[in-house]
């Protein structure tokens, strides 16, 4: 992998001046992922969502590479179509360059409405890297719950009310579902661990076939959290075992980072307004359930990776 100095010298395909919120995780993730492509040209596709609406307001575009947005639920099928066109032209000798194909979707466009399109595209083996910037709710439409929203989190459609204390259900483990597609490469990453993230994006771009990256993307507007704490929150998510860093290569699970000493989940939760109600005495049980879930998921992951506690 390139050194930090080499990485900073690489051209940036996402230019500054886009309209993402201050402290948004998505643009940091995009820049880290695109660093992995090095000097190889990329075509980027985006699902409808924050990243798309803030980077391509006609007549402006923040994308220096080719970019396509089609609709909310079809970014995977769309990039699959682009990649297929590339393969035909390559076969016919009409294109000489190597081009990489990267799709970005939020958790809405990936876990939920775009799930079928994603699954189909992965199963068909298109040579693409799909990156989910997972901010754990539908932020673009105003912070509604998604299947990536953790239990207990307050969103505008799972508000912490007098009777129901936030989202009743646990989040869906999409990374594992993607691994179950038996594609060459699946990984989970965090922008706080940039070296790990870029290496995973490099792996995803280098395999022959589909790759999937699930990246935690703090959302100061929706979680809500301090705009200057984005990386810290992302790091704590890893250190609390809430967001483990791992990869699945050719079916083999591997932990890519193991916290030396687990930080209590509460430290991460306290930095975010969506969990504030969980610290009220009447919601103690919900907090315990969330913690138990995180621990159980962590143990299951360790087992898959052949690691000890």
């Amino acid at each position: 992998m390139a050194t930090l100095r080499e990485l900073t010298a690489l051209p940036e395909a996402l230019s500054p001046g886009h309209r993402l919120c201050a402290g948004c995780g998505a643009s940091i993730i995009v820049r880290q992922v695109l660093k992995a492509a090095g000097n190889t040209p990329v075509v980027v596709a985006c699902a409808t969502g924050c990243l798309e609406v803030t980077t391509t307001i006609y007549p402006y575009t923040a994308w220096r590479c080719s970019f396509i947005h089609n609709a909310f639920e079809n970014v995977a099928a769309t990039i699959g179509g682009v990649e297929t066109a590339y393969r035909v032209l390559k076969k016919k000798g009409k294109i000489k360059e190597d081009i990489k194909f990267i799709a970005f979707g939020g958790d809405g466009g990936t876990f939920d409405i775009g799930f079928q399109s994603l699954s189909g595209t992965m199963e068909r083996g298109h040579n693409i890297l799909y990156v989910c910037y997972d901010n754990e709710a539908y932020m673009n439409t105003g912070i509604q719950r998604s299947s990536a929203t953790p239990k207990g989190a307050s969103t505008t459609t799972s508000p912490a009310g007098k009777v129901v204390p936030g989202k009743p259900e646990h989040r869906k483990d999409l990374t594992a579902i993607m691994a179950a597609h038996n594609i060459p490469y699946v990984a989970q990453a965090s922008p706080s661990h940039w070296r790990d993230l870029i290496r995973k994006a490099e792996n995803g771009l280098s395999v022959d076939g589909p790759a999937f990256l699930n990246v935690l993307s703090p959302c100061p507007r929706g979680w809500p959290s301090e705009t200057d704490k984005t990386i810290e929150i992302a790091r704590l998510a890893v250190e609390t075992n809430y967001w483990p860093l791992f990869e699945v290569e050719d079916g083999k699970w591997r932990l890519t980072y193991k916290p030396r000493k687990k930080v209590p989940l509460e430290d991460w939760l306290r930095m975010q307004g969506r969990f504030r109600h969980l610290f009220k005495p009447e919601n103690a049980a919900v907090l315990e359930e969330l913690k138990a879930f995180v621990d159980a998921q962590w143990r299951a992951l360790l087992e898959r990776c052949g690691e000890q506690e």
Partner: protein
Amino acid sequence: MSVPADVPEVKRMAVTGNEAVALAMKQIEPDVVAAYPITPQTDIVQYFSSFVADGLVQTEFIRVESEHSAMSAVVGAAASGVRAMTATSANGLALMWEVLYIAASTRLPIVMPVVNRALSGPINIHCDHSDSMGARDSGWIQLYSENAQEAYDNIIQAVRIAEHPDVLLPVMVCLDGFIISHALENIEALSDATVRRFIGEWVPAASLLDVDRPITVGPLDLYDYYFEHKRQQAEAMMRAGKVIEEVAEEFAAISGRHYGFLEEYRMDDAAIAVIVLGSTAGTAKVAVDSLRKSGIKAGLIKLRTFRPFPAGELRRALAGVKAVAIMDRADSFSAMGGPVFAEVRSALYEADHRPPCFNFIYGLGGRDVGLEDIIEVYTYLQQAEEDPEGLVTVHYLGVRE
């Protein structure tokens, strides 16, 4: 399989409508096809799979998991500067709905055969036009075919119409499910070389894959520009008429077969006329011949293009007519008749001579329409010609009331 591996010269052959479509697609040999099987379109996907499996085409075939993904992938491919096609029917078309509009507004020259089938619900697999009529305002050009030959010819012409720089709009080529798609007919196929020459090379103005000139496709377009882009789209549809005529003329030169916006059958001195789309025109022509033998001045207009709508041509064709029946193989549930009826009547508003118009909604869900049904329509028109007072405007033909 009765689709030949190659057609070295003009050849007469007995094929089904779906086979004719598959042959046209094979001769066009698009770079990318993405499709999902649905009755009655299924054969097309199966034939195309065989072409790929047998190495008869260089096309990359994406066997998608849904029609939504079919149209999405085709949009991605077309934006990458290649020829891309799909085919569908009914609910498959409905599932594509959202992306149909995106394909049109992105100005991608995609060609798609639509094998017309009744749209659910209730679920039904047989022919009517509720699927493509529902997509009539999606910004696609729509051509309707009377038989397998026309479906074949329309698909080949559609490539040229879609890709014309004055147009750059996607084209649907509609053919009636089962009635055309599964019936065996004689067609005259052009040679592979003739088709290749006719369609030529597709050279897009911009492509996602041009790394030296990167582009952004599908940006957020708000109140400051969206309207201008929609206006440009409307202009393109207006310009499409001239291109459809030019392409038809060139096509006549290579095939001897002539196409226009509409076909007039015994309209020269017609006093009463019926307007139809698709395969019903065949039955209606027999009805006209039979009525003419009894001295009734019956005529027929078959619409080939529904989008753009040939209002001027229709006004001219109906100038001497005393009463018109418009047959709709779909209802619009507007409580004032079907979609073809609404368009025809609207077109006649500006005519110097406005004949009384009647709407006959027929054949929904594949209900058979026979010679006697069409004769019944003409008989009604005769009545209208004599005394139009007190007559009913919208009729449902051949239904148990």
